[in-house]
């Protein structure tokens, strides 16, 4: 019951969808399953949120290092959740003034919108922006001509970077754009690298990935890989 039924569900679910793909009447089954998955993932938020609360409440009750921050997590979580779920301050839609709950939960000017606009967006966007700093330190550390592979890696990155500045473009501007060496102009070099090597490399990676996915899927469906199903 604990292990064989889930194994059966896995195999039947997977193979049924594969077969369904070839039968016109059932080919849309995959879309239905995708919608079901979204529903399950949304229900699973309860598990995640519960775990978040439990984990931080534990830190607070243990008075472990930084327990005050756990209080901040719980506070911001509960406030945001309450405002979001109860549509605090959301006016009903203009067409349906009698339906108090009809408004857009993130309508402009609502408290939830304020949280989104002035906390969520700046925090996540700045996190994203930190990549600019990390990309510089990674380039400084990793792009050293240790061997031929590293030379190719850094050489290509170097050419592409140079081609993105007007200084780099000016560097090869003396090459006749219609002459036999026009291909060495940095903008043409960039296009060539991107359209030939980059395409080829990605193509091979994609083919490999597809084969890997076939193998992993089959192993899952045949029950060769089943660690996620837990102990008997």
């Amino acid at each position: 019951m604990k292990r064989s039924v889930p194994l059966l569900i896995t195999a039947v679910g997977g193979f049924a969808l594969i077969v369904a793909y070839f039968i016109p009447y059932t080919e849309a089954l995959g879309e239905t399953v995708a919608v079901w998955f979204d529903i399950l993932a949304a229900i699973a938020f309860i598990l995640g949120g519960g775990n978040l609360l439990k984990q931080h409440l534990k830190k607070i009750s243990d008075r472990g290092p930084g327990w005050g921050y756990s209080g901040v997590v719980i506070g911001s979580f509960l406030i945001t959740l309450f405002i979001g779920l109860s549509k605090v301050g959301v006016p009903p839609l203009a067409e349906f003034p009698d339906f108090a709950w009809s408004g857009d939960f993130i309508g402009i000017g609502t408290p939830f919108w304020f949280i989104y606009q002035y906390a969520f967006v700046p925090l996540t966007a700045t996190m994203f922006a930190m990549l600019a700093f990390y990309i510089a330190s990674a380039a400084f550390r990793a792009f050293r001509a240790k061997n031929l592979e590293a030379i190719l890696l850094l050489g290509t990155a170097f050419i592409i970077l140079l081609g993105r500045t007007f200084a780099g473009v000016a560097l090869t501007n003396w090459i006749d754009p219609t002459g036999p060496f026009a291909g060495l102009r940095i903008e043409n070099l960039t296009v060539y690298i991107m359209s030939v090597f980059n395409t080829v490399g990605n193509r091979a990676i994609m083919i490999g990935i597809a084969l890997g996915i076939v193998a992993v899927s089959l192993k899952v469906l045949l029950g060769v890989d089943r660690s996620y199903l837990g102990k008997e």
Partner: protein
Amino acid sequence: MRRWITASACLVWTTAAAAQVPGGPTGLEAVDYPWDNGTRIQLTWSLSPDDDTLLGYAVRRRLADDPQQTLIDILPPGTSAYTVPDLDPELAYLFAVTAIAQDNTESAPASTLAPVTPSVQAFDGTRLWFMVTLVLFSGAVVVFIRMARTGRDLKVRKIAGLEAVTEAVGRATEMGRSCLYVPGIQDMNDIQTIASMNVLSHVARTAAEYDAKLEVPTSKSLVMTAARETVETAFLSAGRPDAYNPDLIYYVTDEQFGFVAYAQGMMVREKPAACFYLGSFFAESLILAEMGNSIGAIQVAGTAQPAQLPFFVAACDYTLIGEEFFAASAYLSGEPDQMGSLKGQDVGKLIVAVGILAGVGGMTLAAVTGSDLIQSMVDYFTQRMLT
């Protein structure tokens, strides 16, 4: 400069004065396309007597209960058959084909008289070749898994990143620091996350054997659930069920940058000695890898997101590229079943290589000789078998 005066543009003004009206096509027949999902109808007609002077043929369709005609396509002269795509299996259609002269004059149409409805069949024949492909590639994997079970010795090459897993966990134990495992930021409906769970099971087992602390923050609730089952099983099979602590496998937030804000803070405070990033990653890949590097951790990464591979390659000690990542759990387990699946993948690659060579050869031959027969064979290969 009016380049848009082309055939289709001028169909609206069909009354060009004093033009010679071309002879129209005749005998238009419409039949349902066999073995499909009910979206196609096949048309055939006899060529116009003036075919060699024409600009082409215009194909139009209309619904049986609606007089409004819709232009579907304009075909080159010499065409006498066409498959109308993208139809609705619940509607009845009428079709008309006209010949267009060089001066855009249109002939009288050849029309179908009875409405035709595309019908849905029990099997989609347009996917027949795909089914063959599917059977071929899955068959290769299944056959080798079976062969492995009969006890054949299957050898595979070494992958440095995977050899390093045990070493990294061991080093973390020596240093008295933890191991960090990030299974990507996608949910369980991504095959990379599933593959990551398989790898996690082996990493967890190694950690249990070394008695190392293994921390698994996740970005999705379902992944947390699956990871807990996985790690618990691994600790059990390593004979250390008492050492399993579910609190070390926890949910952070669904938000990509919220998750990584937490992860980088946690890394700088706890300084894990071994970091594993295996799964589906996006922009956060570089933040994780740079942070891990700055705290001096041994880092093993693996993903099938081509766009993130460069950052892992630049900042991590070992990177499993695409297919290597999917092969990781097979390598780490060393079980014969798993080795068999690797061999199956290799056979798959061999088939791909042969297919590409055959296609390229055929196409080159067709280009050099100009042979229509070879060209049509290559077309069948690329247009039918590979779609």
